[in-house]
């Protein structure tokens, strides 16, 4: 997690100047600066970091967004975009010297083209609402983060969010055709197209997952897929997590690409079972949920193959959902994993490392060691199909010592993920939370390349500054700069 960004205290005079400048073209209700109004925006889903923003702007039109950006750019005021505030890495953490640009009023679905299978929506539209409105056409939007009833499509674009079905259907980057918005100087830009590609560099891929640092997105064109005719899920029990991990590899080695493939360990199933009664096997050290979707023929065929693989891979029990209600019940526990932790512990801290699947056993053992080392519990839920781990450290934020131990626990796990050839974040983003671990994953030259890309869009560094990519100085202070070969990058930089 690292120490909080050093953000300045609110300067009352600056606040007045900026609020007044925005009021010249925004109505009073769209410019908030009194603390009682701005306080609700002090954090996103990562509540350990909080900062009351200097001013909150709530535009309703693209023209207003453009004018806010132009005006902030001219005054050199940092701007932090915000969607629904469900982010888990502090990407939308405000600044005391900046404007928080809340996109909550961009809630319209602008166009649905069922024949071309696209929908054009404003960025504040919740992920789940897209599938709801296109459902009458037999279509849906595939990426389904667990937060889908709340999180915005704009936030999904900024984080390249995934869901439990992304092994087969991809992440946000695979399901968005085009975004429109503005760079920090108010210049309108459009990346991608409604065709399947656009000329030049793939700026769409660059914008997706850029954590709101390259452009403010005001319109998103998503790709829609035909709803599978049917889906069924196999639930399998295992005596130990390693065997469960090998079963995942066996399914894929058999040439099967399931729609979803999720794992939970016993501490996780126990916590959720109390909460949602999903019918999980509490004797099992781990359970796997493996979903198959498609035509009835495909599903029947695949389920039979999956069951055969699981049986020979050491599953102690398997059951197959008999109807839609049962399928949703099997998933309900997985989807409620985070809130369930909130019921058994005052706080939980969710990690997001991704590893090559074959290293799963090793990493889970490492997490077990860390539980003992730091004296904290850590249930695991896991997008097993794509190697994305969500260990959940349970702690009490009221205890400064527990918070410190949690931070160190998490940092060690993320660094382990890098060491086994993985990454510190699979889908939640770096934000402010994992910024120090970026120094472990990337070399100085790589970080410099990120900064150079940022400068191409935002030379003064005014759009969501200080997130996602650490300065080299910060890495030097953190003392964990990745060493390439035997030579330290930038030997000329002072190291402490």
């Amino acid at each position, binding site marked *: 997690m690292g120490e909080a960004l050093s953000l300045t205290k609110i300067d009352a005079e600056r606040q007045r100047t900026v609020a007044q400048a925005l009021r010249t073209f925004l109505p009073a209700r769209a410019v908030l600066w009194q603390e009682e109004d701005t306080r609700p925006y002090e954090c996103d889903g990562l509540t350990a970091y909080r900062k009351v923003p200097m001013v909150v702007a709530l535009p309703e039109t693209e023209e207003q967004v453009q004018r806010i950006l132009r005006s902030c750019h001219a005054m050199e005021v940092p701007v932090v975009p915000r969607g629904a505030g469900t982010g888990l890495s502090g990407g939308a953490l405000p600044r005391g010297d900046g404007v928080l640009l809340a996109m909550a009023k961009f809630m319209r679905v602008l166009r649905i083209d069922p*024949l071309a299978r696209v929908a054009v929506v404003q960025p504040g539209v919740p992920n789940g609402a897209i599938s709801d409105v296109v459902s009458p056409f037999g279509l849906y939007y595939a990426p389904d983060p667990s937060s889908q009833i709340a999180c915005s499509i704009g936030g999904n674009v900024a984080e390249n969010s995934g869901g439990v079905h992304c092994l087969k259907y991809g992440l946000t980057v695979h399901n968005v055709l085009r975004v429109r918005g503005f760079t920090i100087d108010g210049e309108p830009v459009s990346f991608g197209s409604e065709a399947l590609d656009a000329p030049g560099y793939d*700026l769409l891929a660059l914008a997706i997952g*850029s954590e709101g640092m390259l452009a403010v997105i005001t319109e998103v064109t998503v790709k829609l897929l035909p709803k599978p005719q049917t889906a069924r899920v196999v639930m399998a029990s295992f005596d130990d997590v390693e065997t469960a991990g090998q079963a995942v590899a066996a399914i894929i080695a058999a040439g099967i690409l399931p729609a979803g493939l999720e794992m939970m360990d016993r501490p996780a199933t126990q916590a959720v079972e109390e909460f949602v009664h999903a019918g999980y096997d509490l004797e099992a050290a781990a359970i796997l949920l493996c979903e198959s979707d498609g035509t009835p023929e*495909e599903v029947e065929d695949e389920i039979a193959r999956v069951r055969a693989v699981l049986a020979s891979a050491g599953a102690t029990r398997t059951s197959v959902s008999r109807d839609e209600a049962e399928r949703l019940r099997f998933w309900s526990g997985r989807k409620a994993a985070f809130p369930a932790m909130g019921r058994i512990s005052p706080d939980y801290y969710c990690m997001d490392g991704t590893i*090559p699947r074959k290293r799963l056993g090793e990493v889970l053992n490492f997490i077990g060691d860390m539980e003992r080392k730091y004296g904290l519990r850590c249930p695991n839920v896991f997008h097993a199909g*794509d190697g994305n781990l969500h260990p959940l450290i349970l702690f009490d934020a009221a205890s400064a010592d527990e918070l410190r131990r949690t931070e160190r626990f998490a940092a060690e796990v993320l660094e382990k993920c890098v060491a086994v050839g993985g990454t510190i974040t699979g889908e939640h983003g770096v934000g402010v939370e994992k910024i120090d671990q970026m120094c472990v994953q990337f070399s100085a030259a790589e970080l410099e390349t990120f900064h150079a890309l940022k400068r191409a869009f935002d030379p003064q560094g005014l759009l969501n500054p200080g997130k996602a990519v650490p300065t080299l100085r910060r890495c030097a202070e953190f003392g964990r700069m990745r060493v390439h070969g035997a030579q330290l990058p930038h030997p000329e930089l002072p190291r402490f």
Partner: protein
Amino acid sequence: MDAAIAALAERIRAAAESRQALCIRGGGSKDFYGGEPRGELLDARGYAGIVSYEPSELVVTARAGTPLAELEAVLADNGQMLAFEPPHFSPGATLGGCVAAGLSGPRRAAAGALRDFVLGARVLDGRGRWLAFGGEVMKNVAGYDVSRLLAGSLGTLGLIAQVSLKVLPRPQREITLAFEMPEARALETTNRWAGLPLPISATAWHDGRLSVRLSGAESALRAAAEKLGGEAAASEAAARDWTAIREQTVPFFAGEAPLWRVSLPSNAKPLALPEAQLIEWGGALRWLKSGADAATVRGAAAQAGGHATLFRGGDRAAGVFAPLAPALARLHREIKAAFDPAGILNPGRLYREF
């Protein structure tokens, strides 16, 4: 960094210092594509070989000089494939050139484009710096997505030295159905079918004949074929036909007239141009053999909501790719400068200005 990379890096550093343009090249199979190659030849074929491949991880990592055919053969031995079905255009095609060109084949509309399967890349930038982005895991949002940015950059941002790609299991079975129908009806039909849960993995329409490939489990194909009708082709011959379309060896592509690649929203109306077309990707990719001037073709494409690339032949000097809006052109120049400040890597290959 191994010795081969160190030598390539040194070469790039020296070229940057003396502002000597470099022409990065693999098998040269795509020399025809993009702006005229120029500069001193930098052959990437020496840096070859599969670095790691574990079928159960669905990832392969290989060096740029690895022949595409060799890589695909290894995947096929393990029942897997590059799902974007990249065109080779010559037996010498390499992985590096394939990623730099960013082209995808018949399965693109169903499975995704090359860039969708790029998980990570190692690259030597225009300063000869050895950089790694992304990785070998399916999901990775640490840092900007530079490896996808490299896909289709035509070597203008760096020498793509090593790539990790997501691979997929080969379908259990494939069948091809053929239908007689005129262009407008074929467009309407393929779009409508794409909105239904059918295992369609490729379409091609030309001269009144629509071919539709289905991929998946035997039972699913049988059910879909029953629903769609059409006339089923023998599977080996059909497989050869799809390869011929991908490799542009079907008769449509022969002849001297310039070949345009017109990328459109899939349901765009038939292009208001008189010449013959071959339509793939459910309507989203329209190949056009036309001697019409660039402004006419680009105008028709833009009007239909897409863009046109002068793919093969014609006057490359007038620009191969659709011109960019001023704001995007500025971003392109800045991004190019971030990777290659001396402007030595494949200059003019993507856009004349850089």
